[in-house]
């Protein structure tokens, strides 16, 4: 449509573009600039070139943060996706009880990360937590220190995250199941295919785009985990749960190293872009193929 006055579309977009520029475009440029300086927020900044990136790489910090983030994210994606798919199959049925259980699972996705973090901190508490208590009642000896043992803490935090975001996978998978052409499933049933057979040769292949979608969006979201880590473990014990965003936060607010924090944020953003690019390519192939 032709605008009534030529200027109309521009003033309509002006506030949006202005705020996007100030809070998105400018910060990205500024981030790259800051990453080339050494600055503690108190004394004047000085230019150091790529030294921040080099030191992140040489100290092994970057690699450690990346592998922690990646392994926790993979656990979260695999866990929440299988739980979400299983629950979607289980809950794709009429009835009030099924609807109630769907709501219960989805509610965790709506409640804040802080609430969930505090709740599970208490459930997993090594002394008075109910899980430790149940453990003591069933097995002799002390319960494992889920959150104090560096070998267990990342998986404990991942499990809590799975509990929180399974509702997301559930909702998307349910939508996928309900969009499925009923005729195909009915035909398979008439042919006498068992439930397992119907799932393997009809439901699962038809769900492929949905699965891919849940996998990539959850992976990108899990890479940005922060709240649950800040509330439950503060990156510890022994940095075993220091994921990217927590590492950046720590550099900036606890160590006052603005340059290093920025360099790490630039790398982090690069990784997110790669993941999004991969998602885009996967979906393009999906649509053309």
């Amino acid at each position: 449509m032709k605008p009534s006055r030529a200027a109309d579309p521009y003033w309509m977009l002006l506030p949006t573009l202005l705020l996007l520029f100030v809070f998105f475009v400018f910060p990205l440029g500024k981030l790259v600039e800051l990453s080339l300086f050494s600055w503690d927020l108190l004394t004047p900044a000085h230019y150091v070139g790529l030294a921040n990136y080099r030191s992140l790489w040489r100290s092994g910090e970057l690699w450690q943060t990346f592998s922690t983030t990646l392994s926790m994210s993979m656990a979260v994606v695999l866990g929440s996706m299988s739980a979400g798919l299983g629950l979607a199959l289980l809950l794709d049925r009429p009835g009030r009880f099924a609807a109630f259980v769907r709501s219960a699972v989805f509610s965790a996705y709506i409640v804040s990360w802080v609430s969930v973090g505090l709740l599970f901190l208490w459930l997993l508490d090594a002394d008075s937590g109910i899980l430790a208590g149940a453990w003591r009642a069933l097995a002799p000896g002390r319960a494992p220190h889920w959150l104090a043992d560096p070998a267990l803490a990342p998986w404990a935090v991942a499990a809590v995250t799975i509990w929180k975001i399974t509702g997301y996978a559930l909702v998307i998978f349910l939508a996928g199941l309900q969009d499925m052409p009923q005729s195909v499933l009915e035909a398979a049933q008439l042919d006498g295919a068992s439930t397992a057979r119907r799932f393997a040769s009809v439901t699962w292949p038809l769900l492929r785009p949905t699965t891919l979608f849940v996998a990539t969006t959850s992976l990108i979201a899990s890479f940005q985990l922060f709240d649950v880590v800040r509330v439950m473990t503060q990156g510890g014990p022994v940095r075993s749960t220091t994921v990217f965003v927590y590492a950046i936060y720590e550099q900036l607010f606890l160590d006052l190293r603005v340059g290093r924090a920025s360099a790490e944020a630039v790398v982090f953003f690069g990784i997110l872009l790669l993941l999004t690019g991969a998602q885009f390519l996967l979906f393009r192939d999906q649509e053309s193929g």
Partner: protein
Amino acid sequence: MRPGSGFGGGLGRALLCVVALVWLFPYLWMGLTSLKPLAEIIASPTALWPKKPTLDAYREVFRSLPLARYFFNTSVMALGIAALQILLALPAGYALAKLRFRGKRWALGLIVATLLVPAQVRFVPVFSLLASVGLVNTLTGLILPFGVSALGTFLVRQALLSVPDAQIEAARIDGASELYIVYRLLTPLLKPTLVSFFLFSFVSHWNDYFWPLVLTTDEHARTLPLAIALLREQGTGVRWHLVMAGNVILSLPALAVFAAAQRHLLRAVSMRGFGG
């Protein structure tokens, strides 16, 4: 039952009960803990029901924290962000969906591109920017960086694509201004999208922890999630009954919105999913 669904019968029902327990027991345990005195919690950690239920934990939380202030801050912030996002998304989405002008593709491209930049990436420079203009520790500083939602703008645009041009042209012939068209004529047509987006944005920002944590250093602009998380960090030994009472206070509003508007939130989640 429709064919293709998973398990039926008794096994399915039993599994449903287990699932309900896994997702509901934590809430129940939170509520029960908040009603117990600390001594009881320590003496018998696994006892389900409180022997002497008491509201002391809630009294203590209300006494020790300026909860009214935190509620006010959190509500103003979340409502302010959600309202501003919709206010700005309407004209922008309208221009992008319905008007012909130079630079349109470029503007749409920029908006979609910012979907890729999460708050967790831009917080370092945004913090230093807001600090340089004295907006740290203010509600304005909490609201402004989220005043535009690329997602909201995009969703409004998508929804407007299906509104026939003739309807808008008819209003123009009747002498309606563009402002009238954007805010009065189109809003009823967009209601489902706007309501879902508003609620989702409100709940996400009510729950937000990261940004208030970065941008507030004292009580003045502190929000509820921050204050409740601090309950655990204060003092010696964790007083779980207080933390859980605080947690009930924090999660009840979100759960209430959820109970009242689940349909809309579900819509928002799947829109977010397939919207881009």
